[in-house]
């Protein structure tokens, strides 16, 4: 039989050994984890302009992703008034944290891709799906109205339904060529519509069975891209 002192000693030794092993492992792998995460996020951004790249974003190697980012992408951070904030990189902006701040104080990341087909402005949007947050990268052409591509991701939408915003390429492919502004120059954004498109310039087909996620995407696009309006106005003038 074991007495209390032996039990305490056993558990203490075990805990110390385990803690030591795990902390060594975590510290040792931390740089690789950070690198992987950065590349994962960069791939998500590149998939918005996939049609202008040589390969699909998911097929790019880590080095290619880094190369595109260092050679062809300019990272800009803007505030809600459209002023460029110097000295910060867009990749350092954590959209989840920004979303919790009051609207006027938020910082917005912009990735400017300068490729053979002209400049594309990739903006970040974030909103709510059915279960948790959803977000996306939207690439705009230099008229700031035509969408050149879109990519979405989510925390916990239902596989086969809401998760199709990420998994089903047919959903985000629909966004290519849509217009944010109508003929009169009013901001209308792009609506994810159930039951048939009436206005092909500003609407895309929703995912059947995923009404709340689809509405979440509509809302996120409408509100999220509008934040960038002051910045676009400044560039245009």
């Amino acid at each position, binding site marked *: 039989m074991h007495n209390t002192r032996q039990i305490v000693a056993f558990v203490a030794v075990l805990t110390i050994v*385990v803690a030591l092993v795990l902390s060594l492992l975590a510290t040792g792998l931390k740089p690789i984890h950070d690198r992987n995460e950065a590349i994962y996020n960069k791939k998500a951004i590149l998939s918005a302009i996939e049609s202008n790249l040589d390969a699909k974003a998911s097929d790019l190697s880590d080095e290619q992703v880094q190369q595109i980012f260092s050679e062809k992408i300019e990272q800009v951070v803007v505030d809600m008034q459209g002023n460029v904030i110097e000295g910060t990189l867009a990749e350092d902006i954590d959209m989840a944290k920004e979303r919790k701040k009051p609207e006027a104080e938020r910082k917005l990341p912009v990735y400017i891709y300068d490729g053979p087909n002209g400049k594309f402005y990739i903006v970040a949007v974030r909103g709510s799906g059915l279960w948790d947050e959803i977000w996306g990268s939207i690439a705009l052409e230099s008229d700031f109205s035509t969408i050149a591509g879109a990519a979405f991701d989510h925390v916990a939408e239902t596989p*086969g339904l809401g998760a199709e915003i990420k998994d089903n390429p047919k959903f985000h492919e629909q966004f290519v060529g849509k217009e944010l502004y109508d003929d009169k120059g009013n901001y209308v954004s792009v609506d994810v519509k159930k039951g048939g498109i009436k206005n092909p310039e500003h609407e895309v087909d929703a995912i059947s069975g995923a009404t709340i996620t689809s509405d979440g995407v509509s809302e996120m696009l409408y509100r999220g891209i509008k934040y960038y309006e002051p910045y676009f106005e400044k560039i245009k003038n």
Partner: protein
Amino acid sequence: MAETIAKKPEAKEREPLFGPKEKKLLTDPLNDNNPITVQVLGICSALAVTTLVYPSVIMSIAVVFVTAFSSLFTSLLRKSIPKQVRMIVQLVIIATLVTIVEQVLKALNFEVYKQLSVFIGLIITNCIVMGRLEAFSMANRPWRSFLDGIGNGLGYGAILIIVAVLRELFGKGSLFAGSPLAIQIIGPSSDYILDTSAISWLGWYQNNNLMVLSGAAMFIIGVLIWVHRTWNPKLVDVS
């Protein structure tokens, strides 16, 4: 002659490293004592991660690793683990191994790590792991416990992969999506090997969205249990 006869029983006393008993430890959980279809353990993750084959394979490898090494370490420590705290000690061992798996996977394949998300962490609560520690490793030698752990991990993984193949094939029309081996097998466009829109009598075919939802996994596992029992009648009297 006399010498050789005398030596034989001595050699027999030493247990072989991999005899019929050890083989049974590996094969039993694959059939007669399958953790999922016979003991109905580890159902939670079997329902959740089996939408695609590739993450299921990774998940199976992770579970084999955890069951094997937690059995090994528990068995090594079995004489010194105080009875009063043995469950929590087992849990510490399992949790340590699961954390190692999680950290390594995050470094090796970030995309699969993202896909499996919480389910790697939830291996800790997988009843198969702790069940084997309590039922087997606490009373057996390290080598045999290690084999028992591998066997049970494989038994779990085999069912996981069968379910995932059915779900991915009929739900998405592909196999191994997300891995370098990805192939598109059946679907209504020319991207797939079997293009159903080009074959007139198969024009009705569509990927079954139900297969992607966890409900389908429950039906498939139910049918697998049924098939398994019909094929192996001695299971019918077990429970």
